[in-house]
Every structure is written in structure tokens, then in C-alpha cells.
């Protein structure tokens, strides 16, 4: 271990539901203080990946040795490369081209250990803590916003936040202080006493983000957080999260199927039918495909996969 581990390391993750393969050898990193977008259509495997990263299902395979170690250098590209260390940065830079060329991405890991037959395997590490082996430490460093609304509608905003604080071993006095600070940051300081039911969709999302950050994690996971919101609320939530990344150095993995939520400098992982087709800075992925924009690049990538 050279310097500090990335906020999130997904290593050669595979998962199947029976015979249906939901994830096939997916690897990528989210570095500290970075906004990364996981882009994919519905059914691409985003929700499965999310469940594995949050430990709802176990990512357990053990077969991450050797190949995986090299994989950190190989599969993470773009902005990620700079943290890995001088020795691999050259290779990683070349890898951006390699990884984006359609089916090649899948082979990065496969070639190193030949474990293609594995159905469920790989590992997820949060700040170096394995979610399967050390879920307590990993989950303490993780904030999660689920796609479904998870506020207790009958309870007040403050009660919802205090419940979350208790789930992280934070007592009511400290919890109230943290909750007030979190709500102020979300611009909802005056809504603490209101029932969650009385909030708008966008406000609920803001409260959920505030709640996810209450215990001070440095990595925030959001599963399609703008689904069901109107255009203004969508832009508002996205700006809020980007602001958190910029100002507080939070690492964010933002799951979406909406291409217009991605900016050229974002790290993007393109997930399609359970495979990571590309992983790198959005602008570089676009350039590598000779596309005019991320939308066109996405279409070319997925078309190449199908053709």
C-alpha cells in the first residue's frame, strides 16, 4: 500500500441472479474528492452494483489476488491514474484508449487471471475497508441515498435525522447538533419540525442527502437521485452535490441514465449489460470515440458492443 487508498475501489465485480449475469467483471475506482458518474441504461446493472457496494449483497469471491492488484493500475483511468503512483501512471494513461475500445474493457482483468467462469466474485473497498470482510468500518465511511424515497413520512424531518444518527451510534444531543448543521447546509434549516410528508420531492432528496452525510462520511453514493424530480429540482440537486464535492472534498458516485447530468471533466464509468465499457474522464471518452458529445460516445460504445 503506497499512499492512501481511493474512496471507492470496485475490483473485478461479478454477480448473477441464477443464470442471468447482472455484472460481469466490473472494475473502477472513485478517488477522494472526485465526482464520478456511473452511466447506464435501465437494466445495465447499476442497481446490482449499488446493492453490492452498500453490502446488501455480499461481494465475495476471494479471487482478487494478483490480477486485481494489477487491475488497480489497469482499470482505473483518467483522473484516477494520478493517485496510483508513478510506476503505473504511464500504463494507465495508455489504458484510457484501451479501455474505451468496446469489448477490450472487459479483458483488462480477464487476461490477468482467466477467472471468466466465476459468477459471483470480486471485492468492494471503501477507503481500503472491504465491505464483505469489514462492513462496519466500510459503512461508517459511506453515505447512501437510495433511489426509493426512504424518509419516514409520518415523522418529522428532525426525527428522521435523529433516527439515522442513532443508527450510527450518535446520541440525541450530538445528533441534534449535527442534524441542524446538515439541514442548514442543505438550506432547509426552517423545515426541521415539519413532517417529511409535507416536503416537496426535491426537498426530500435534499434531506436524504443531508441525512446520508450526517455521520461525516467522505464518500457519498447516490442511486439515480434525480428520478421523479422536475427539471428545476433536478438541476438543483445536481448543483448541490457538485457544490459539496467542490467545497468539502467529498467523493461522489452518482448513478444515472441521464447523459445531460454529466460534465466534460467528470469521471464516467459506462455500464452496459453488466459490463464496464469505458472508464475515464468524459471528455477523453468522447475524444477517443471521435464523438461530438457524451451521448454520441455512449451510443457508439453500446452499438459496438452489440454489433
Amino acid at each position: 500500500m503506497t499512499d492512501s487508498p481511493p474512496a471507492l475501489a470496485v475490483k473485478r465485480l461479478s454477480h448473477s441472479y441464477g443464470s442471468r449475469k447482472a455484472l460481469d467483471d466490473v472494475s473502477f475506482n472513485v478517488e477522494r474528492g472526485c465526482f464520478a458518474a456511473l452511466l447506464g441504461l435501465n437494466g445495465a446493472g447499476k442497481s446490482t452494483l449499488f446493492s453490492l457496494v452498500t453490502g446488501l449483497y455480499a461481494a465475495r469471491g476471494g479471487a482478487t489476488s494478483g490480477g486485481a492488484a494489477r487491475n488497480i493500475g489497469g482499470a482505473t483511468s483518467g483522473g484516477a491514474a494520478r493517485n496510483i503512483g508513478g510506476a503505473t501512471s504511464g500504463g494507465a494513461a495508455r489504458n484510457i484508449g484501451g479501455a474505451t475500445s468496446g469489448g477490450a474493457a472487459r479483458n483488462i482483468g480477464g487476461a490477468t487471471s482467466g477467472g471468466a467462469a466465476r459468477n459471483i466474485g470480486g471485492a468492494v473497498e471503501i477507503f481500503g475497508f472491504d465491505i464483505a470482510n469489514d462492513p462496519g468500518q466500510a459503512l461508517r465511511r459511506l453515505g447512501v441515498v437510495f433511489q426509493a424515497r426512504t424518509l419516514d413520512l409520518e415523522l418529522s424531518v428532525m426525527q428522521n435525522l435523529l433516527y439515522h444518527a442513532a443508527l450510527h451510534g450518535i446520541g440525541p444531543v450530538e445528533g441534534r447538533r449535527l442534524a441542524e448543521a446538515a439541514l442548514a447546509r442543505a438550506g432547509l434549516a426552517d423545515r426541521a419540525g415539519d413532517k417529511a410528508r409535507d416536503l416537496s420531492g426535491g426537498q426530500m432528496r435534499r434531506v436524504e442527502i443531508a441525512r446520508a452525510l450526517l455521520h461525516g462520511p467522505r464518500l457519498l453514493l447516490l442511486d439515480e437521485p434525480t428520478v421523479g424530480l422536475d427539471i428545476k429540482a433536478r438541476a438543483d440537486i445536481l448543483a448541490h452535490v457538485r457544490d459539496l464535492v467542490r467545497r468539502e472534498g467529498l467523493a461522489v458516485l452518482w448513478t444515472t441514465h441521464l447523459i445531460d447530468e454529466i460534465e466534460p471533466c467528470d469521471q464516467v464509468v459506462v455500464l452496459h449489460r453488466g459490463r464496464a465499457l469505458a472508464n475515464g474522464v468524459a471528455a477523453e471518452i468522447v475524444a477517443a470515440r471521435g464523438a461530438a458529445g457524451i451521448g454520441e460516445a455512449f451510443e457508439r460504445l453500446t452499438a459496438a458492443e452489440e454489433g
Partner: protein
Amino acid sequence: MTTSSNADPLSARPFTSAQYAICLGGVVWREALRFLHQRERFVSALVRPLVWLFIFAAGFRSVLGISIIPPYETYVLYEVYITPGLMAMIQLFNGMQSSLSMVYDREMGNMRTLLVSPFPRWFLLGAKLFAGVAVSILQVYAYLVIAFFWEIEPPTKWGYVTVLPALALVGLMLGALGMLLSSLIKQLENFAGVMNFVIFPMFFASSALYPLWRVKEASPWLYYACSINPFTHAVELIRFAFYQKIAWDSLAALLAYTSLFLFGAIRAYDPAKGLLTRKGG
């Protein structure tokens, strides 16, 4: 681009026992708040056994003769006989209802909020179970207050105290069963199936409404089914405890069933082995 330091902002120390207590307190507190917000749930939980007591028992009083069987030392009225069964019924419905709420929670995502807590999963499920048991005991005592005015009471007031541990164990057993079922049910609609295939058979194939020797006269097979039914043992443990006695065989059976269901529930929610993995929900 980044302003964060590389230092790990959170300590790697394990949680203290005080923090475990905070977590448990938080789960019970939320359950209590939800309970207060669902007054109709409380009322219906109370009305159900009272209907059985005031209507069914009154009607059957003359039809069913109950001979003197332990723990009773004299002939008892049918209302007195079925009261332990009705107490267990309150807990049965409560256990299944909390399983329903867990299915609901899972669909709505609240269960996931619970499960991303860094506390060990067995502890989170245990806390949830504990909260449910506390609520069910509250309901049983509310029923006993009304039954008291109907002149159904234990031989001494101590019966109200000695029944408490029995209620706790029965609540735990039924809650664990509900939790296990909640991991098996994928959709809310299947709760009707739980009513048909779990609640009714458990309740009717037990000693709640009639003593087992009567069942034996009718069908030895049914008697056999009744005598292994965990609900029978739940009813008998409560019946004896209400009379300050211990039904040892029922206690042993309940402990066995409780550990079995708990083991199954914790395993079902275990991320590595869990049924959740296979179902993708």
C-alpha cells in the same frame, strides 16, 4: 480540484456499548413513534381478541365443556380458557404485522436504511425484533385491562407479572418467525397468503380455542400437528405463566423454535448467504 486531506476522518475504533445502546434506543424510539402514528393499528389489534372474547366465547360457553386440566384447579369458564390463546393471538398478529412492515420497509427502502448502518446486522435485526416485541406486550396488557373488567383475571395479581417473561419469549419467537417470512416474501400482496397459510393454521391447530385432548378424540393426526405447532406451546406457556406456573415442555419447545427462527432470519438477511441475493430484491 480536491480540498480534502488524505487523513482518515473517522476513527477505526469499534463501537462502544453505549453506542450500541443508542442504536437500540433509536430503533425502539422509531417503532414507538410509528406506533403512535398508527392508532387504528392499535385499535384493531385490540378489537380482534375482544370480538373473540365477547362474541365467540360467549356463544361457545355452553357448547364446549372444559374439564379440569392443568394449570386450572377448578372448572373454568370458556372465556377464561381462551384468554391465553387470545393473548398469544395478539402477539401472532403483531409478529406477522411487523413482518409485513418489514416487507413494506424493504420495498420502500427503509429496511435498506437500517441495513446500511455500520452496526452488525444481527444486532440491527435484533433491535428491530426487540422493538416489535415491546409493542406487542403493550397491546397484550391493554387487552388484559379490558378482560379484567370482564372478570377474567389471574388467581393472584402476581399472574400479571409472571406472564411477562412468557410474553417476551412468545413475542420473540413470533417476531423471528415473521422476520424469516419477511425475507421469503417478495411482494406486499403475498401477505394475504401469510394470513391463509400461517396465521389461520397456526391459530386453529393449537390449544388456543380447545384443549388438545378434545382434538385427540377427533383426529390423532390433527392432535399430532397441534402438539408440534409452536403456537400451541406459546399459548400453553402463557396459560401456565398467568397462573404462576411453568410449562417446562412448552418452554423447551419455544426456546428451540425461537433459536431456529432467529438463526434462519439472521441467515436470510446475511449479505453473503442471504436469500436477498438470489431474488435480487
